[in-house]
């Protein structure tokens, strides 16, 4: 599986992406690709530029230069909502639920719908067909909440959930959309290890549904477990790319991780 990952079409490819803040080169000519239908890990020590890279790809920050190709589109410089509508969905380091809405509302609202969400529809009302879509959408949202074990909380304020439950809710929203690509920003951050199992299962269910996955994560055991292909960043650049096993012996990867929680421990 791992060896095959580097070949085949890309869901996302990034070329020469750069972003400087004042004199600091947060991302400095970063290039990598995420093979379609696979799980790609993005790792690197703190300050490597992973989060900035994701912000640049998803439109939350403007790149100084570089190209981001997603499917057939060049998306660098587009605003976040346009990128999301093309089917690239991202999460954030801290879960960003809509705290005042219920869990069911959070999941049902995940998919953007130009027609039903139009302002004039709020006044004129929905067509019969649109009402059917809404009903199906709610059914699906319920089913997904059942799948993620959150159904009993569906009427709860999302802001009242625990950290781990918020992560699950985020996964449920992604499940609802089934985007072409999802970028998960540190999904294991602040989550107890028991949930890791559930998240790994969810990630493979994303793949089954046709979603390509990218995971940024510090937890290397988790990376080894779920990814087919790993991109290593340090100081704003990609220093290595390949299956996890081949990186374990890569000199520059080991150097970059010196002083970090040991890279070697991960596979143990």
């Amino acid at each position, binding site marked *: 599986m791992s060896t095959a990952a580097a070949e085949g079409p890309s869901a996302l490819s990034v070329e020469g992406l750069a972003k400087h803040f004042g004199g600091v080169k947060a991302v400095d000519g970063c290039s990598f690709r995420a093979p379609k239908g696979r799980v790609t890990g993005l790792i690197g020590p703190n300050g490597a530029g992973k989060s900035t890279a994701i*912000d640049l790809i998803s439109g939350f*920050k*403007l790149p100084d230069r570089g190209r981001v190709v997603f499917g057939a589109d060049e998306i660098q410089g587009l605003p976040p909502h346009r990128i999301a509508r093309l089917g690239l969905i991202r999460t954030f380091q801290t879960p960003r639920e809509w705290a005042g809405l219920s869990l069911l509302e959070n999941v049902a609202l995940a998919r953007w719908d130009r027609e039903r969400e139009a302002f004039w529809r709020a006044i004129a009302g929905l067509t019969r067909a649109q009402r059917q879509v809404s009903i199906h959408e709610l059914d699906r949202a319920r089913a997904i909440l059942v799948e993620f074990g959150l159904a009993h909380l569906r009427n709860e304020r999302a802001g009242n959930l625990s950290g781990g439950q918020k992560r699950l809710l985020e996964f449920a929203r992604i499940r609802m959309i089934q985007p072409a690509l999802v970028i998960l920003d540190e999904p294991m951050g602040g989550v107890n290890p028991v949930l890791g199992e559930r998240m790994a299962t969810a990630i493979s269910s994303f793949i089954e549904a046709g979603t390509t996955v990218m995971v940024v994560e510090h937890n290397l055991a988790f990376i080894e477990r779920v990814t087919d292909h790993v991109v290593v960043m340090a100081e704003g650049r990609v220093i290595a790319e390949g299956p996890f096993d081949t990186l374990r012996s890569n000199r520059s990867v080991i150097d970059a991780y010196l002083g970090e929680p040991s890279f070697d421990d991960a596979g143990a």
Partner: protein
Amino acid sequence: MHEVLLTLGFGLVTASILALSAVAFTLEYGVTNVANLSHGEILTGGAYAAFVVHRLTGSALVGALAAALAGGLIALGMHWLVVDRFVRRGTATLTVFIATLGMSFVIQNTLVIVFGAANVAYTIPQGAPQQIGPFLWTRTGLTVIVSALAITAVLYLIISHTKFGKALRAVSQNRDLAAVTGINTRAVAAATWFLAGLVAGYAGFVLAESVGTFNPYFGFSFFLITLTAAVAGGLGRAFSTMVGAVIVGIVLEFTGGYISASYELAFAFAILAVVILFRPRGLFVNARRTVFE
């Protein structure tokens, strides 16, 4: 040329008052992350205190000290009674901002009850105009400029050279981190508000003195100009705020002198809108960015 210099001279007086008010506002903002919409009422309180004490004692100096003290106490009261109670609980900054608007309402109307809503004439002999360098200043105008410079110097010394100043800077930069390092953030914030109140109260006195008349709403109008200066300079950074104040003060004096004084406020806001739109982090910071950066 002569008229330009004359206007510039007046502009520097306005700018000095504005700088005092704006630096006080910025100090309040820095330590609590709250844009205090009731800041203007500190100035108003200072003006009333100076007026009353000046009349009782016959000394403008005692009046000025009373203004500063009143300002300090009002600011301390605001912090202790309202702002701190929100900030301590981690309430969203916008909520505290709204609460300070409510406080402004309460203080203005308390002053209306105590002193009435009518204008109070506060005339102090301005002294004969003197030629100083290229400028023509009255004795009052000169006092305003010199005292503003002196206060700025003292503030600079306090902020950059004392232990308290160090704590103040730490709290401004990152309140949580400052707390972890053992700084009593609430005490530092309270002391900073008191200090800011002293400065703003004094600013209220010199403003009343140079305008010659005031009422319970006068601080609020001036606050709107203060806000322009503070945002132009970069909210939360004390000394660039003062540069913003000088620029705004001089621009206003010229527009007031050459267009019409009654449009001054509208003009201040036009400046503010332009600054916020193109340089939301102040005139001195530039970056190409999305709304999320």
